């Protein structure tokens, strides 16, 4: 009798427990679906906003490379060619862009072209000097306002005074479309140029290279220091109050807001040591300080994960402590430390606030070629573009976010690859 009651109790309890199991499984599943949905939504928004940045609008322009206008002759030297009066050729080309343009209309038409057109006309000629005294049909870059209109990013049904292009300009654009003198092609500028005041020729390469140099600095500074610090703390440091204090403070440092590190960089690196402002060297140093605790924590975790029996084995055959650590423990921990470092670098890649503090927010229209040259960084570039009033920069910022995301994915892929490649079983 008693026995059967006990049995029933056990069975009902078992049912309850399996129900609990089920419920938890559903919670987990729902949570995962939610986060996936948010991620997909995020990616979709960014992509749908940004994919147009990968295209640019070009316009067919008839250019007359007349030697009188250019003030050149067919046998001018290369140096003289450089000095040709290309702005006059361009002026003439625009005046004749539509038949019978009035003076005021010429001004309006001029605004349909990018500032870069002068250079395009010149480059075309320098590449093909034989076109002197001929008329050439050249595809040149349209102004961002035209570009945005044709991409449907700016609306034409708002009152004229709230539009970038007035009614006359609109009708000219329509005419171009009708005559097939305008088209959209791959935007190579985005991947070959640095930032610009003009959206149609602004590119992401300047800030990309800036980020690359910055990350390089971060890696060079933080990896050796982090390895040294974590190996020392994990394997050599005496276990006493001071070590404990250091350990606690490393964790604390990992939680310090990044802008504080920016202030440190501003106060110490720039003002005391006088390092050059806005450079990857300073930015990288600041971010290295910021990521060091993270990397040290990851390194220590992977050092800890190496089974002590390996070290004991080495010590037992008479290895010194240093040999045991550097021949056996560190190599085994290496995949973990590399992964940790890459995660730290990924964190550094997305960091904006400290870079703003040390002046990497300046407008830099050149692609940096070294650590001590002023440059932008990807997240700051995104911030600058989002802030910008020009319509044309909005799609650029979304596209730059895509670039940074791909950069991040690639770094994570490298981390996973390294982990799988070097991971050993024991």
């Amino acid at each position, binding site marked *: 009798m008693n026995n059967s009651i006990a049995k029933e109790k056990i069975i009902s309890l078992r049912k309850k427990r399996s129900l609990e199991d089920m419920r938890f499984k559903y919670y987990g599943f729902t949570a995962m679906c939610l986060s996936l949905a948010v991620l997909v939504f995020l990616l979709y928004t960014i992509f749908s906003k940004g994919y147009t940045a990968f295209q640019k609008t070009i316009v067919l322009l008839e250019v007359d490379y007349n030697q009188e206008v250019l003030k050149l002759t067919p046998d001018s030297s290369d140096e003289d060619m450089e000095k040709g009066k290309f702005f006059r050729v361009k002026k003439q080309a625009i005046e004749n862009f539509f038949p019978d343009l009035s003076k005021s209309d010429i001004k309006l038409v001029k605004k349909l072209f990018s500032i870069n057109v002068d250079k395009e006309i010149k480059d075309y000629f320098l590449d093909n000097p034989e076109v002197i005294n001929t008329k050439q049909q050249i595809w040149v870059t349209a102004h961002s306002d035209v570009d945005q209109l044709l991409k449907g990013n700016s609306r034409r049904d708002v009152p004229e005074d709230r539009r970038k292009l007035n009614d006359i300009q609109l009708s000219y654009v329509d005419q171009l479309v009708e005559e097939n003198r305008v088209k959209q092609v791959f935007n190579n500028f985005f991947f070959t140029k640095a930032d610009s005041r003009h959206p149609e020729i602004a590119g992401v390469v300047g800030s990309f290279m800036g980020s690359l140099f910055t990350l390089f600095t971060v890696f060079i500074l933080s990896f050796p220091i982090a390895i040294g610090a974590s190996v020392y703390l994990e394997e050599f440091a005496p*276990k006493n109050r001071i070590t404990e204090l250091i350990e606690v403070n490393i964790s604390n440092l990992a939680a310090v807001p990044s802008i504080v590190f920016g202030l440190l960089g501003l106060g110490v690196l720039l003002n005391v040591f006088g390092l050059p402002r806005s450079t990857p060297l300073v930015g990288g140093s600041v971010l290295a300080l910021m990521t060091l605790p993270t990397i040290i924590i990851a390194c220590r975790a992977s050092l800890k994960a190496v*089974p*002590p*029996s*390996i*070290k*004991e*084995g*080495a*010590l*037992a*055959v*008479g*290895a*010194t402590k240093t*040999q045991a650590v550097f*021949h*056996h423990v560190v190599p*085994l921990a290496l995949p973990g430390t590399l992964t940790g470092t890459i995660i730290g670098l990924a964190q550094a890649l997305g960091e904006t606030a400290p870079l703003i503090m040390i002046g990497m927010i300046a407008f830099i229209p050149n692609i940096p070629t070294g650590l001590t040259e002023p440059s932008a960084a990807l997240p700051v570039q995104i911030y600058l573009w989002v802030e910008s009033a020009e319509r044309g920069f909005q799609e650029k910022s979304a596209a730059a976010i895509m670039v940074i995301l791909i950069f991040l994915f690639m770094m994570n892929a490298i981390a996973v690859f390294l982990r799988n490649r070097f991971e*050993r*079983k*024991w």
Partner: protein
Amino acid sequence: MSNSKILANGVDVYYGSKQALFGISMDIKEKEVTALIGPSGCGKSTFLRCINRMNDLIEICKVSGSIKVDNEEIISEKTDVVSLRSKIGMVFQKPNPFPKSIFDNVAYGPTIHGLVDSKNELEEIVHSSLKKAGLFDEVKDRLNEPGTSLSGGQQQRLCIARAIAVNPEIILMDEPCSALDPIATAIIEELIDELRLNYTIIIVTHSMQQAARVSQKTCFFHLGELIETGETNKIFTNPDNTKTQDYITGRFG
């Protein structure tokens, strides 16, 4: 009779405030196998790890008393633990080959001690160590494969080869067969019997039969004290102490 190789005198060991060994004194003869037996937690491993100063790795472990190896005090600040450990090899309870090739596992010791000048010499040492450990024939075609790919028994013999490659005089074995099947155990026991000709061996074991089979001397530990030590034959047939009697007849432990 042969000389004493290790002479322990009044060895106390504390883990923090907890005393694990109480005044252990022991005399271990050269080229003999000494078995340490006793119930779990009685301090056999602790004593073994005192002899090659492995206890240094444990922060809270304090050792006092005297242990002399070849008449040289080793429980002292001045002891050179690196040369001590190259003289005293150790084989652990769980095989712990390095995650490197079989060759590199054995070659590691001779390389760091600078025992060899050329690749050929190194190869010779590796081969002879593997032969002494009775493993060479099984692995000679795959010396470049990871040591961890071997079976448990092979791994343990690899660890023995690794230990004898640095040409030690003493080998400490802490339950070397606890993870092995009877066949692998038999192989290792046979090996211990052979190694005895050249090395002084101290082995910790939970198997009475194993102690009886391989050792000449047996020491019985209980609750951190050395209860009885003597000829293996005598301990197993006619021990002086009733605790020893009880333990070897399986009445406790």
